């Protein structure tokens, strides 16, 4: 039994390694997805953090030199050139006169509020103007012998309880999803090639004509596809480990540290998922009539784990999802990277469900390979 399984597995692996498409699938994903994630992080950083100098148009600045100096000290300057934002601040003619007389002096802020990209800049200008305004108010009260604190009945003290790591929960979810997804993508091509492809090339009947049990055939194929999937996962983790170091995390306020421990834990937790992904893909492809048809069916099956995983990233129904395949393991990995303790009961249950599903699918395939319909694709 073991000797034959060994022979079968060896041949499956040689076949897979010599198949350019299978190898390229692993490589593209393992190198591409971490780099893509890094790209997304860089974009997020650009979006979240306002540039240090905000260049806007300030009209009639000579009317309020003191305000302009104040804005300058807050990094908001009258500028020209490329990074000039479409925000215009116009100071009224009577600014100085109104100021002197203690009347509200008018400044006009002109900007498109519906423009998402400008929002943070507009807020920043508004905050700066309010800051100037309350500073002026305090000075006026002091000049009249009144403690400025009387016009501040409530003092709000904000204590941020979020640790640096828990802030980026969603981003963690997406990053871990992209890593776990490797086990679905990297083995896929070989899963199709060795089932629907094997039948299409007429070697399936020849294989079944040899003195082997269908269990040996199915197990060898599952092991081969799982090996590819896990190789892809390990590569993805290692490339992520290297690539994530170049992301300037301090600007996002949290870090995704792909530590050695995380790589080991990731491989351990993804193993049951990889086995399930392989059996599922083989199962579906054995029932497809051709390579092309198998590709179509498999893209449907990719959808389910994707949904489970995205739901976990968005923190939807975490109490249910932590017991299920894919989302359970993802939850555990997210907890680990956030520095929280992993809840073992749901993780074990989720692993068990994952493996039971795989066993069910393996038994299904064994049966299918004894049926004329599957063998000849009727």
């Amino acid at each position, binding site marked *: 039994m073991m000797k034959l399984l060994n022979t079968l597995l060896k*041949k499956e692996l040689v076949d897979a390694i010599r198949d350019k498409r299978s190898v390229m699938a692993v490589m593209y994903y393992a190198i591409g997805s971490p780099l893509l994630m890094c790209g997304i992080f860089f974009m997020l950083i650009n979006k979240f953090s306002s540039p240090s100098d905000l260049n806007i148009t300030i009209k009639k600045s000579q009317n309020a030199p003191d305000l302009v100096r104040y804005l300058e000290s807050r990094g908001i300057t009258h500028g020209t050139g490329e990074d000039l934002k479409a925000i215009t601040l116009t100071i009224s003619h009577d600014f100085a006169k109104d100021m002197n007389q203690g009347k509200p002096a008018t400044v006009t802020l002109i900007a498109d509020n519906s423009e998402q990209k400008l929002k943070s800049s507009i807020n920043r200008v508004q905050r700066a103007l309010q800051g100037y305004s309350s500073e002026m108010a305090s000075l006026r009260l002091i000049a009249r012998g009144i403690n400025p604190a009387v016009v501040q009945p409530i003092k709000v003290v904000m204590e941020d309880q979020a640790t640096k790591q828990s802030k980026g929960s969603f981003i963690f979810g997406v990053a871990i999803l992209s890593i776990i997804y490797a086990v679905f993508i990297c083995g896929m091509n070989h899963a199709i090639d060795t089932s629907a492809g094997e039948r299409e090339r007429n070697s399936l009947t020849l294989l079944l004509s040899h003195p082997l049990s269908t269990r040996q055939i199915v197990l060898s194929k599952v092991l081969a596809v799982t090996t590819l999937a896990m190789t892809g996962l390990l590569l993805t983790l290692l490339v992520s480990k290297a690539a994530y170091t170049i992301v300037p995390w301090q600007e996002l306020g949290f870090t995704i540290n792909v530590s050695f421990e995380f790589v080991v834990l990731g491989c351990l937790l993804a193993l049951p998922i990889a086995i399930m992904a392989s059996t599922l893909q083989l199962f579906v492809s054995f029932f497809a009539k051709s390579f092309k048809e198998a590709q179509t069916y498999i893209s449907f099956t990719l959808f389910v784990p994707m949904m489970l995983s995205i739901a976990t990233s968005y923190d939807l129904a975490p109490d249910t999802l932590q017991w299920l395949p894919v989302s359970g393991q993802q939850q555990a990995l997210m907890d680990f990277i956030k520095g929280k303790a992993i809840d073992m009961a749901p993780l074990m249950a989720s692993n068990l469900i994952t493996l039971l599903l795989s066993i069910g699918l393996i038994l299904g395939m064994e049966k299918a390979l004894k049926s004329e319909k599957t063998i000849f694709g009727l």
Partner: protein
Amino acid sequence: MIEVKHLSKRIGDVQALDDLSFKALNGQITGLLGPNGAGKTTCLRTLFGLLQPDDGVAEIDGIDVRKDPIAAKQQLGLFPDPFGLYERLTPREYISYFAELSGLSKAQAKDATERAIQMLKLDDIADRRCKGFSQGQRMKTALAQAIVHQPTNVILDEPTRGLDVMSTRLLRSNLQQLKEQGHCVLFSSHVMQEVAALCDQVIVMAKGKVVAVGSPEKLCEMAGETSLEEAFIKLIGSDEGIAA
């Protein structure tokens, strides 16, 4: 020895095998001759347990295929139609892979593969990947796979299809050699010449049934014709689906 007794099999609306019985003996070449759609391939697939008969028994060396498929298949070598090569393996890898699957140890498989390569004169292509092989090269690789583990029984499904004269001759001489070594050779064909030239026993099939059994000469005698072709047409009652 291969023996089928009262095999019946329905596929969809077609009665592919209809109470089929025959025997193929060791040290003989037996031809399964019939027009396209006579049930030849269905019959061979039943021998390998790929199809389950509705009724009847298929035995390899006295082992019921249905009861002990693994033991039965160990006594069989298959030359399939189509060949089912793995294009990314070399013939050497391919042949030795199937030798190991047929139960040989790694070392035995290596020796047996070398022997098969020598026998079929595959040396020049033995270590090239099968992708892009000519029909003749594919045939030789497939045949080497079928005989590498020296099974008592060798089954060939339409072996000469698409082969040129040289390859056909090589195949014939190899089948003769197997016969002399005492193997039981069973092949299906719808090509007259091939059957007339090779077979000790011809089983004429039509519509899933055995129509006549005997040596080519005996069949001619039975039909009262001088050529096997004429005899064949007379026996099956039509000239549909026959290649001369």
